[in-house]
């Protein structure tokens, strides 16, 4: 599997109202890689993902999946949305089976794989529960199981844990990382949380807003034997702080600029 995004730009709107949202994005993802895209809100992260998924068309540039031009959505690129996107009328098991049934897999196959992926996300006991009977974290795990069960070559995760509270988010990060390690999955993770990106991804792209563009790419070859220990490690914190500074520097928000200039005039050099 090889996914390549070459010189992709995207504008929304026509004529004078046209707004350039992405400018010359270049990305590569190879089989088995875990890549992250980090940027502040509105920097166009979701748009990148939607272009790769084929849910939007680039204004210029190309996206190739194994040398085939991406023209629309397809089961080779699975997606997990930030908002809970389970089908509320289906049980957890039927949600997981949904994609496989769309693809017309045979019944026995569907049943086996549904059971398998529910177990992978640790929800075998909740198979018959409906989405509204599941917590937010459980719902996202079902959504991940559903995307994986449809057998994609790459999974696109758009802030999958953004709506979860901190503790659950940390356990979900560990869960996702272990899942990736065990299953040889290929993943593109979008997040505005640097720590999340650095914990899991081997390569992290930093995006700047207005227009959205990749300004820095770092290889994060860290020892991920123990994620919760890694969160506290010095090398990890230094890398995180370095990139956080880069992100803050990109923030063109007028309020932030004003605050920063105020901080510099008072001679404070703390966090600004």
């Amino acid at each position, binding site marked *: 599997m090889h996914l390549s995004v070459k010189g992709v730009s995207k504008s929304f709107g026509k004529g004078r109202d046209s707004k350039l949202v992405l400018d010359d994005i270049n990305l590569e993802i190879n089989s088995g890689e875990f890549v992250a895209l980090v940027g502040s809100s509105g920097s166009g992260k979701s748009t990148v993902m939607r272009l790769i998924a084929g849910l939007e068309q680039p204004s210029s540039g190309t996206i190739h999946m194994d040398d085939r031009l991406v023209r629309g959505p397809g089961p080779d690129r699975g997606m997990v949305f930030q*908002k809970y996107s389970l089908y509320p009328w289906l049980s957890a098991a039927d949600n997981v089976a949904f994609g496989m049934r769309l693809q017309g897999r045979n019944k026995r196959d569907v049943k086996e794989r549904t059971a398998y992926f529910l177990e992978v996300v640790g929800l075998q006991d909740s198979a018959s529960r409906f989405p509204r009977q599941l917590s937010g974290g459980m719902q996202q795990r079902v959504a991940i199981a559903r995307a994986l069960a449809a057998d994609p070559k790459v999974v696109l995760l758009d802030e999958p844990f953004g709506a979860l509270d901190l503790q659950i988010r940390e356990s979900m990060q560990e869960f996702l990382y272990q899942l990736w390690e065990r299953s040889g999955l290929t993943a593109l993770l979008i997040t505005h949380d640097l720590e999340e990106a650095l914990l899991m991804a081997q390569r992290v792209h930093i995006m700047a807003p207005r227009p959205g563009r990749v300004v820095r790419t770092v290889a994060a070859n860290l020892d991920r034997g123990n994620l919760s220990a890694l969160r506290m490690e010095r090398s990890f914190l230094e890398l995180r702080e370095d990139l956080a500074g880069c992100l803050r520097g990109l923030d063109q928000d007028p309020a932030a600029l004003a605050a920063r200039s105020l901080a510099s005039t008072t001679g404070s050099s703390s966090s600004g």
Partner: protein
Amino acid sequence: MSLRRRLDQPWLLGLVGVLTLLLLWQVVASLRVVDPLFLPSPAEVLGAGAEQYQEGVLVNDALASIGRVLGGYALSIVVSLPLGIAMGSNRLVCQLLEPLLGLIRYMPAPAFIPLLIIYFGLGELPKVLLIFIGTLFFNTLMIMDAVKFVPSELLESALTMGGRGLQITTRVVAPFIAPQVLDAYRINMAAAWNLVIVAELVAANEGLGKRISLAQRFLRTDEIFVGLIAIGLIGLLIDLGFRLVMRRSCRWAI
């Protein structure tokens, strides 16, 4: 248990309301402040109802009216579903039809009666068509709205798992809108039921509306009351039927 809590039962207060009205009616009637010719007592109405029932007219009329409603409304249900879904999911279809439906919707359905009689005579067809015309646009527009509010994540998830065209409609759109569609059908059923009575007032050989207009000619207010109450009760039963279907089939949405 407080009084408020004790009163908070689904049926209780509704029943109290109905009984209060009946009691008020009985009191006013027995005081003879209104000429009995204009306001028969509940007992007289009950008597007239029993009489009509024994003669078989009541059941006959009810069946005639119900048959027309079911015919016209079934047609409306069958046509509005694909039309509403097409309008809700395809922008071009919507742009083509929405202004048209919006216009026709404001033409009062009873005003079509003269035209329908000229075209189709006095038989069953014009009545069935009236109900069809009078409910089609409301059903279609309500279904269209429901389709437009299907969350895009649900549609897009299906697309990224290999879903295509019609599959999306049958497996995502249809189940998602089912509760709203049933509710639209339930609400607009009231309009169908109103229209059949109007049609029968104008031209019919039997039916609850026809009975009412005959009763008017002979100044039989008790029979008018029988007709009105029968219409209300049948409507209520149909409404409850829709609610039951909804509760059975769309448990997830309640």
